[in-house]
């Protein structure tokens, strides 16, 4: 019973890692905490839902059509909002992306109303089929696929950053945009490309959100909070930490739900604060140095 809950929690953690991926990537590269992250995921979920319903195609195919749209949106987001925000100080991106989140949520409400939607009916058996686990219990096929996609995406991003010319350009620009310019890198374009990549991962996460559960126009903020908790629990700026953070969050939530009806959310938030407190205590009296080390000395 408890073991099964832990297993389900680990799989749920895969989804959290998936939704946290874009947030973590954007924070690591652009040093921006994008408060519209959850709302953009829900926006992608609606786009996939509309395409799948209109063309009567599988959500997976619809996602392929939506990916370039979200990549373009990411490019635009960087060029129109984030770039300008960053110029006027470290706090401005928080304000502008929060404003953007309010706009996205309410435009979605205006367009789609308060009804909850789901892509689960569009994926047939996949929504509820499961495999038996030796020793009792079972794992949902969709949950396992989600976990696999999260791992693949994290590995893919890591390889991309380490091995490809664009990945190297992104890392160089993130370290020091002025020096990167000196060696012929167009930092504006590189940042815009990084933002486009982040939104591609957000679109994937939004689609899995829509397949595994229901969503409505105001689902975004909750997804932002879960993603953020996964990133912070795992250690800011590390893609692998994000997977571990997601798993810790998922396991805590599932165990919490066994104790009390609201225990799912309470345990999730509680584990977030416990991990933070532990980190502060371990760092002794200079938590700032630790945070700075975690972020790679962003100053």
């Amino acid at each position, binding site marked *: 019973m408890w073991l099964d809950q832990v297993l389900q929690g680990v799989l749920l953690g895969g989804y959290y890692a998936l939704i946290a991926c874009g947030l973590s990537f954007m924070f690591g590269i652009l040093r921006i905490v994008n408060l519209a992250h959850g709302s953009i995921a829900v926006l992608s979920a609606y786009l996939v839902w509309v395409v799948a319903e209109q063309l009567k195609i599988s959500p997976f195919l619809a996602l392929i059509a939506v990916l370039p749209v979200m990549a373009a949106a990411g490019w635009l987001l960087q060029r129109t909002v984030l770039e300008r*925000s960053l110029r006027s100080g470290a*706090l*401005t991106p928080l304000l*502008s992306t929060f404003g953007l989140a309010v*706009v996205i949520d309410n435009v979605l409400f205006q367009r789609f109303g308060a009804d909850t939607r789901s892509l689960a009916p569009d994926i047939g058996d996949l929504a509820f089929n499961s495999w038996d686990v030796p020793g009792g219990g079972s794992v949902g096929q969709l949950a396992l696929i989600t976990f696999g996609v999260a791992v693949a995406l994290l590995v893919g991003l890591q390889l991309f950053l380490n091995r490809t010319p664009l990945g190297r350009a992104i890392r160089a620009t993130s370290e020091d945009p002025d020096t990167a310019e000196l060696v012929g890198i167009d930092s504006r374009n590189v940042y815009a490309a990084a933002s486009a990549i982040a939104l591609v991962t957000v679109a994937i996460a939004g689609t899995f959100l829509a397949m595994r559960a229901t969503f409505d126009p105001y689902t975004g903020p909750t997804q932002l909070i879960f993603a*953020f908790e996964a990133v912070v629990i795992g250690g800011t700026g590390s893609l692998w930490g994000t997977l571990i953070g997601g798993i810790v969050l998922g396991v805590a939530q599932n165990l919490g739900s066994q104790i009390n009806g*609201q225990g799912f*959310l309470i345990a999730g*938030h509680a584990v977030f*604060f416990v991990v933070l407190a532990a980190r502060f205590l371990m760092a002794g009296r200079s938590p700032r140095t630790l945070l700075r080390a975690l972020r790679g000395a962003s100053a």
Partner: protein
Amino acid sequence: MTDAKALAVTRWTRVSITAVAALGGLLLVLAFGPAFLGADLTDRLTTLFIYVILAAMWNALAGYGGLVSIGQQAFFGLGAYAAIRLSNAGVEVYLALVLAPLIVGLLSLPLSSFALRLRGGEFAIGMWVFAELAHLLVNLDTLIQGETGTSLIAISGFAPDARRAFNYWLALAVMTVVVAAVFFLLRSRTGAAIQAIRDNEEAAASVGVRVMATKRLIFVLAAVGCAAAGALQLATLITFQPKTYFSVQWTAYMIFMTLVGGLGTFEGPILGAIIFFAVETLFGSSGVWYLIGLGGSALLFSLFLPRGIWGALSSRFGIQLMPVGYRLASPSRARKPGSAG
């Protein structure tokens, strides 16, 4: 080269003396409000006072402390909740409304040593997580009955007219106290520290500013202020449904008011609260478009006018109504605006 002897640092100008006198006069007139305003206008002004409190508190945090919090609804909700609890325990209802924010202030002390270690975006969403957790824990209280909520029953013991006038006076008093607190804080030695932290935290620390203590002061002040606003909201609504008090919408309103009025200016949030009040009165019934407008304005102001309407006006014309900064004045030249604001 300017002759140093010809220059003098002043705090008061003719404009600011006039403005402070006018403000004092206005407050005096407002104190007699319930006698001549009529029921509807009295209620509306009570709401405006609550908005001014919220805007001033969020501005103190973000504009002066450099702390962008998306979780101030935590204190708003806890203020109302504490008032319910105190009243339920037999405390006289208006005393409960006054004590509740102070209790929340005490609670914010231990929280501050934790939260203030978070930086930037981590602080912003960390506070949001705290608000969510506070909401869930309040829901567990059997007195509240989850999302069903409860009422501040004891306040119904007052006749509607008396209740309206008491709420109005309490809101006016709290608004005056918190705005005055920000004013005296900015004029004090701490004010210089606060502005140094806002401009550059590392540099401020290096010249001996006690960054943590100063930030904690602002954090606790903002907690008390937002809790008082929550308690006042409860006094006017009477009902307590956790969802409506712990909604992130409240922080969205605070951000809108502060950004539009002028982040990091003393007068800006007051102007922003008046603008928000007017916008809500005119468009509040148009539902979702109104919210899109609020979010869109916050987005555009943060991008194109980060110091808001007041910030733009005061740097364009060098006006500062409230004497919170220092001005360099020379008898022979025009007065220059102070750098602090």
